[in-house]
């Protein structure tokens, strides 16, 4: 049913805008950019309606991409229930954010460049989601990495933007390295990269107790996922990635790309289910990331940084869900998180837009009366993320937590505590931005309808999105995990509300409390404020040695002496030979011809007479 049309539309948009964008008018650029994404959204809807109940995956084979020896990799797409969810998220949120971006990017330089990159990103993301074998998925995987690099470094004249882009790209390389190793192992193990064959093969294998082949594969996949989804220890690129334009942060670094890791893990659940140890790793890393990032989020003053760390921690939740076997809950959280986190970022974008680029919370405050719509929508999002009852976050987060409780109670408690932290810092940000006195110098104003419109749609989704029961939809793929335990649910919700209350106390009731606390536990506070010095540690431990090593050993030693020496040596020998050979080159064509005739005569003597006998 022509799945290929879904990614093709954005690709076309990318080509049109990227090639002709410099010449065509802005209105046309918008039409192409939005139109392409909307078209693929509509096509997704059409596909899903015509597909009926996707109990089994519907695959389409287009052409054989790589055919060499035993390796047979086709370019084929498949859609099943999981893919359907991801498709709807990507295209739906994507269209909203594209629309929003028209307003946000208005008057920015490189307008067409921005939209062509965005469309390219949509193309790769959809390829990633639709792919039905690991290699094609990897193509999308790398492609979205490329686009995120391009878009983080969108303001390439700023130094921090380019460095942030490089950081994101390089950190992702580590993850991709893991992913590719995993693919090699998978191929070696199952002789194919098609999901269906791999998973059937895995289903035939016993659960592994120790670190067997499956566990290795899963751990390597996990490394890849950590890189893409900013999990410990590879999360460092995501906060810096906020250097890009806010719609990018919303689309790529909150809603879609960073969830690719989760998607990949969930997609490979057949493998993970047979590697319990890997599952534990997933859960552990998820939990650690969630908590860790939440603590950092407490102290940040850059509004986008706050949301970035909350993204990291929410991704941690998703990994936790996947790790404890509640894959459907993880995907559910992917969806709800896409709603409210996109909303958070777009709202933050609206605030920044209204403040002409001001991002520091300390220079905000009292913005409520200036931008009511933004404030209210942001409030909805904050409620949703802090798991306020019957908002979207509430359902998905609690599905995860209760599953975690089924795994081991302490995980649950840490998760709940983290939920409290989340609620606290999100509302901290909200209060600091919208209540109290205006502390800034810029002149704030509300954003145009083209920006607030998507905000409202997303707000509705963030509030009501939880009633879309993803676990039931995914029932045939993932067995329903332990039923809801009301006690647990309300405990976590309660903790969330406590967090909100604390935030209110700290930042509205008694605004001088935070300072006191900071002084009270100064060392710890400063450590957290500096994000645990992780960047510095990485720099000292990894980056410096690499740079120095390559400068001394590889460049001076290897490249300069050995390789250049060899190359020049070869050149010199060739030159010497040529000096001898050129004696034969009289430059007179006819003597060449005579040589040719001589040669052909000899050939004929050899072959002809030989054959004649």
């Amino acid at each position, binding site marked *: 049913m022509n799945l290929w049309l879904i990614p093709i539309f954005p690709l076309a948009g990318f080509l049109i805008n990227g090639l002709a964008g410099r010449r065509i008018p802005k209105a046309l650029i918008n039409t192409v950019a939005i139109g392409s994404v909307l078209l693929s959204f509509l096509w997704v809807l059409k596909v899903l309606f015509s597909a009926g109940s996707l109990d089994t995956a519907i695959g389409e084979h287009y052409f054989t991409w790589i055919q060499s020896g035993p390796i047979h990799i086709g370019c084929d797409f498949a859609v099943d229930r999981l893919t359907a969810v991801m498709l709807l998220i990507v295209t739906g949120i994507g269209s909203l954010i594209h629309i929003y971006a028209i307003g946000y990017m208005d008057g920015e330089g490189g307008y067409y460049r921005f939209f062509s990159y965005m469309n390219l990103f949509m193309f790769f993301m959809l390829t990633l989601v639709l792919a039905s074998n690991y290699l094609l998925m990897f193509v999308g995987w790398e492609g979205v990495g490329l686009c995120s690099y391009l878009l983080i470094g969108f303001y390439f004249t700023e130094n921090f933007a380019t460095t942030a882009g490089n950081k994101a790209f390089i950190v992702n390389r580590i993850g991709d390295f893991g992913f590719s190793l995993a693919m090699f192992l998978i191929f070696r193990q199952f002789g194919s990269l098609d999901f269906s064959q791999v998973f059937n093969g895995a289903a035939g294998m016993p659960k592994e107790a120790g670190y067997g082949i499956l566990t290795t594969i899963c751990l390597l996949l996990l490394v890849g996922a950590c890189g893409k989804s900013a999990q410990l220890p590879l999360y460092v690129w995501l906060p810096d990635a906020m250097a890009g334009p806010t719609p990018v942060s919303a689309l790529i670094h909150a809603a879609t790309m960073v969830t690719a890791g989760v998607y990949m893990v969930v997609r490979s659940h057949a493998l993970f289910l047979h590697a319990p140890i890997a599952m534990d790793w997933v859960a552990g890393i998820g939990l650690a990331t969630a908590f860790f990032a939440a603590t950092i989020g407490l102290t940040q003053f850059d509004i986008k940084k706050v949301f970035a760390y909350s993204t990291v921690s929410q991704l941690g939740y998703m990994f936790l869900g996947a790790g404890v076997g509640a894959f459907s809950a993880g995907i559910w959280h992917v969806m709800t998180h896409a709603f409210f986190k996109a909303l958070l970022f777009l709202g933050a974008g609206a605030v920044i837009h209204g403040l002409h680029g001001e991002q520091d919370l300390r220079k905000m405050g009292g913005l409520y009366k200036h931008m009511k719509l933004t404030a209210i929508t942001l409030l909805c999002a904050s409620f949703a993320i802090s798991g306020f009852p019957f908002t979207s976050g509430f359902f998905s987060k609690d599905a995860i937590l209760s599953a975690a409780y089924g795994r081991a109670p302490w995980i649950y408690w840490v998760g709940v505590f983290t939920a409290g932290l989340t609620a606290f810092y999100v509302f901290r940000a909200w209060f600091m931005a919208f209540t109290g006195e205006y502390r800034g110098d810029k002149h704030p104003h509300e954003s145009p309808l083209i920006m607030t419109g998507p905000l409202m749609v997303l707000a509705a989704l963030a509030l009501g999105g939880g009633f879309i029961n993803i676990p039931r939809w995914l029932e045939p793929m993932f067995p329903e995990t332990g039923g809801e335990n009301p006690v647990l649910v309300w405990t976590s919700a309660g903790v969330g509300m406590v967090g909100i209350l604390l935030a209110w106390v700290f930042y509205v009731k008694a605004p001088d409390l935070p300072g006191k606390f900071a002084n009270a536990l100064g060392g710890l506070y400063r450590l957290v404020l500096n994000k645990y010095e992780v960047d510095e540690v990485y720099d000292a431990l990894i980056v410096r040695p690499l740079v120095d090593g390559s400068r001394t050993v590889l460049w001076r030693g290897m490249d300069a002496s050995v390789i250049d020496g060899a190359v020049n040596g070869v050149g010199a020998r060739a030159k010497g030979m040529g000096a001898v050979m*050129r004696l034969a*080159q009289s*430059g007179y064509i006819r003597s060449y*011809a005579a040589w040719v005739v001589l040669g052909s005569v000899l050939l004929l003597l050899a072959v002809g007479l030989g054959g004649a006998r």
Partner: protein
Amino acid sequence: MAPSYAVPLNWYLILSAILFCLGIAGFLYRRNIITVFMSIELMLNAVNLSFITFSYKWRAVDGNIFAFFVMVVAAAEAAVGLAIILTVFKNRRTLEIDEISSMKD
């Protein structure tokens, strides 16, 4: 089957061989680029003749098709070659093949 007035197949082949050798001779002994070029065309023709003869021998059309391709390629070659000759003449004011030997140094 074969009527009395038929021609031995070999004659055609030998004719083409002779024409080919004439082409070689022209290439070796003529000094005018254009004539040399024409000698090449002569060789191509000779080859075509043998192609078609073999096509007759095997009663298969493929030989014809190869001759066809040779013809087309010859056309392209003639276009480019003559353009080159024109350029050379523009630069050197000569068509003597031995005076165009500056490639060697």
